[in-house]
């Protein structure tokens, strides 16, 4: 690994200043993506900025409206060990518990997963389905970016040079709402999603009021399946409705073939997983 310097600022101002001064600097949260990338020479940097000492990046709060503000460096274990998160955002807690193995969850954060901007990132489809926003900070001020607009290409985010992800904000779930993330991996753990699907459903009486469907690893960035979601609105949550939505979701995919699966296989999985994720979410929403 090439030499880099290390700094651990304890305020947003200091961090933003460092990032402004060294445009090639890389923020370090859990390091579970960054360090392997630096080691493999996929990225180089003169300066690693450890952001874990910045209070805003390490806090997990739920405001009076029930919205969750998740510091960008909060490691996974703090998410699934937080009783409030488990009660109000169970899908998020479950997601945090499948991101890597236990030692990875001791370090890795959803913010890091988002900033890494991998097409197969597990967190992003679920965050998209949950209407999450990325809250950023730079010397020129704060911004709020919908998660669906955050990734612009494989490994590239909408963050401007010198801009730092501070937190992820997830609005409270309306009543009778549930989200679910489902991925396919060949092993049962320690694997990258071949396809991942995040969904959320809000029920009203006997129909689906709103739905949201996002897919990972089927395009250069995680994508929303808007038409598929729209097809469910005001529909009874039947197997046929889910089948139709899953087929529509499949149509927006633009997968590649690689060592994790062929394009054909990924398209097929997009359908299977969307259907299954909707079924999971329906059960959870009905029970909530």
């Amino acid at each position, binding site marked *: 690994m090439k030499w880099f310097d290390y700094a651990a600022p304890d305020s947003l101002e200091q961090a933003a200043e460092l990032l402004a001064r060294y445009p090639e600097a890389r923020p370090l949260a859990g390091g579970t993506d960054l360090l392997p990338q630096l080691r493999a020479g996929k990225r180089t940097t003169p300066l690693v900025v450890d952001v874990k000492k910045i209070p805003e990046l390490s806090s997990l709060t739920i405001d009076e409206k029930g919205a969750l503000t998740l510091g960008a460096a909060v490691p996974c274990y703090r998410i699934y060990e937080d009783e409030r998160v488990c009660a109000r955002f169970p899908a998020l807690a479950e997601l945090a518990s499948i991101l890597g193995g236990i030692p990875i969850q001791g370090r890795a954060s959803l913010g890091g997963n988002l900033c890494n901007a991998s097409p197969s990132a597990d967190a992003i489809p679920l965050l998209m389905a949950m209407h999450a926003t990325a809250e950023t900070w730079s010397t020129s001020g704060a911004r709020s970016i919908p998660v669906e607009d955050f990734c612009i290409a494989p490994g590239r985010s909408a963050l401007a040079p010198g801009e730092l992800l501070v937190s992820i904000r997830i609005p409270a779930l309306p009543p009778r709402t549930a989200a679910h993330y489902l991925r*396919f991996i060949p092993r049962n753990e320690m694997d990258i999603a071949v396809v991942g699907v995040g969904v959320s459903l809000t029920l009203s009486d006997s129909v689906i009021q709103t739905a949201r469907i996002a897919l990972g690893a089927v395009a250069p960035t995680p994508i929303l399946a808007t038409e598929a979601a729209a097809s469910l609105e005001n529909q009874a949550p039947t197997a046929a409705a889910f089948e139709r939505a899953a087929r529509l979701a499949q149509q927006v995919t633009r997968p590649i073939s690689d060592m994790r699966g062929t394009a054909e296989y990924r398209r097929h*999985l997009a359908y299977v997983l969307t259907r299954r994720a909707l079924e999971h979410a329906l059960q959870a929403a009905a029970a909530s």
Partner: protein
Amino acid sequence: MSTQSYQVIGTRPIRHDGVDKVTGRALYGADIQMAGLLHGAILRSPHAHARIRSINTSKAEALAGVKAVVTAADFPPTGDRIVDLGEGETPLSYIRGNILASGKVLYRGHAVAAVAATSPHIAAEAASLIEVEYEPLPCVLTAPEAMRPGAPLLHEDLKTKEFGQQTDRVSNIAEHFRHSLGDLEKGFAEADIVLEREFHTATVHQGYIEPHNATALWNNDGRLLIWCSTQGAFVVRDTTACILDLPVSQVKVTPMEIGGGFGGKIPVYLEPVAALLSKKTGRPVKIVMSRKEVFEGTGPTPGSFIRIKIGAKRDGRFTAAQADLAYEAGAYPGAMVGAGAMTVFAAYDIPNVTIDGYDVVVNKPSTAAYRAPGATNAAFATETVVDEIAEHLGLDPLDLRLKNAAKEGTRRADGLKYRRIGCVEVLEAMKAHPHYRAPLEGANRGRGVAIGYWFNAGLPSSCTISVNADGSVTLVEGSTDIGGTRTSVAMQAAEVLGIPAGSVHPVVVDTDSVGFTAVTGGSRTTFATGWAAYEAAQDVLRQMKERAAKLWGLEPSAVRFEGGHFRASGHEISFAELAARLAETGGPVVGRATVNPRGVGGSFAGCIVDVEVDPETGKTSILRFTSIQDAGRAIHPSYVEGQMQGGSVQGIGWALNEEYFMGPDGEMRNSSLLDYRMPTALDLPMIDTQIVEVPNPGHPFGVRGVGEANIVPPPAAIANAIYRAVGVRMRRLPMSPPNLMQELWKKS
């Protein structure tokens, strides 16, 4: 002998090296620290096939902290000759060429140059500054591709050896051989059913957790000292001496603890390079591979193309069998296809057989042994065809196997006539096992069985045993201990000496301190080094009888040894009591033995597996798994079970997910432990075991090596189980979710 009762053999003592290994104190190769230590790094080829036009090392040499750079040009000009360094006869140029490429690179990851620097980071950075000008050449990645006329040639001077004769034909086929028995045409004509199927298996890696490493110090007295992770310290000594043109006595190799090998740590990769760097710098140099280097730069086991044809009578009796085996050797000849050919029908007594083997070079890493090398590929093919025949004939798959099972006196097509073997006993144990009869309910679930064979090797082993005054003994051996063999060897000495296993202190030593000992491989250590320990212990007893006789004023022939005591009429003294009186009876007692045993007894292993397939994703889950193996005599049953469980799980990984996923450019796209996907604890159930004991008449305690046969049957058994679960016959490894989904789509 089989009725004899043992005091030590068959018990489960704590392994002698255990405490050091659970406290972190055991020293593995990469743990070496030394004053003045430099760190090495290797530059590897980014091309699968290319001519090296030039190498410019000046920028690397100019980097602060860099102490030396070496290339193949730094090897002494030894010329070429045929050598046998433990892996069969090989041109020296192949071994040397694989360590540092000269002229051409033959696979992506082929070592081209190396650097020594004051830190591993600087060494790696310097390696990246070496400028190599390549002329890329077209590459061939599979055996069928490489065998095609007009295929790009890896070695312009490689002439095909055919049926034992050197031909003038230049091709990528290093060798084509044939084994024949009986009259194949007549055999197929007699059959009521003939099935012919084709199979493809991917290249897979042994996947040991510890990467290769070596530290070398070319001392000021001219001696070369090496510390490394190897399955055979003497192989490292002899290979390094050969390549560096040194007498073997000038090289001393200290085998450190080894973090797994499975055959992959027999070849030499780093030691001569570390030695050259040490020679240039006058300092010790340590090189540790990264995981990516392990995947790209060391020997996986061959991918293969296999065609199997079997004919059977209506009652299930096999009348004829034919196999074509084309194995990918990687960059240099030696694809283990010989072993594939000897094992492909090893479980069966078939009167008419022809087996053709092809050793084919391709632009992939030079292959190495992997646990029963060559046998798993072959058994995947044979055992799935056998399953299909059983289905066609409406026979129980184990009954069909029993009907045709090899036994004492069966002659294989390669000429070997079996001595006492346990094939029938293993099949009967499978049939009688509760797992085989247990109901398996639920959709998309199926059960499969298969059997596999591995020879086990003899080869030389040396051992000395010194008697200590406290009644214990120190056992010095040359076999690297990868999985508890210090204990399985010590237990055999303890049994002879009538002392507890804990009273034997086994030590694995360097090449200066023990007689020549071949590799820990071929399931030979408990068998052969155990035999050496047995003989050395007998030597101790002979000498101790003389001492007892001296004490008692008798002829040594009057002294008996029984139940841990030396006895003669009216006299008795325990082993420990006599050990305390050696000084007064003539001085220390040291027993010694060297063996080169011929009585190897092959081992059969079978498995029963239940799977569940998700028909929408193609993912297979292992619900239940039972491994049954003939151990001859289980010295330490826990470690026999451990071999069976470990081999089974490697077989499961090979079956379901593991593969070198190669791009058309010869790049391995999944060269990390994330994407190579070896099984984790969460992917498996408990692995049940049943040890069958059909003692090997060729060993004093009846030992058969148990290290390998267990990996052979799982891929076939899983394929057979998948068929029963979802109705598709898998003829390609791995049976990964996308590959299985392909077949499910074809079916629907």
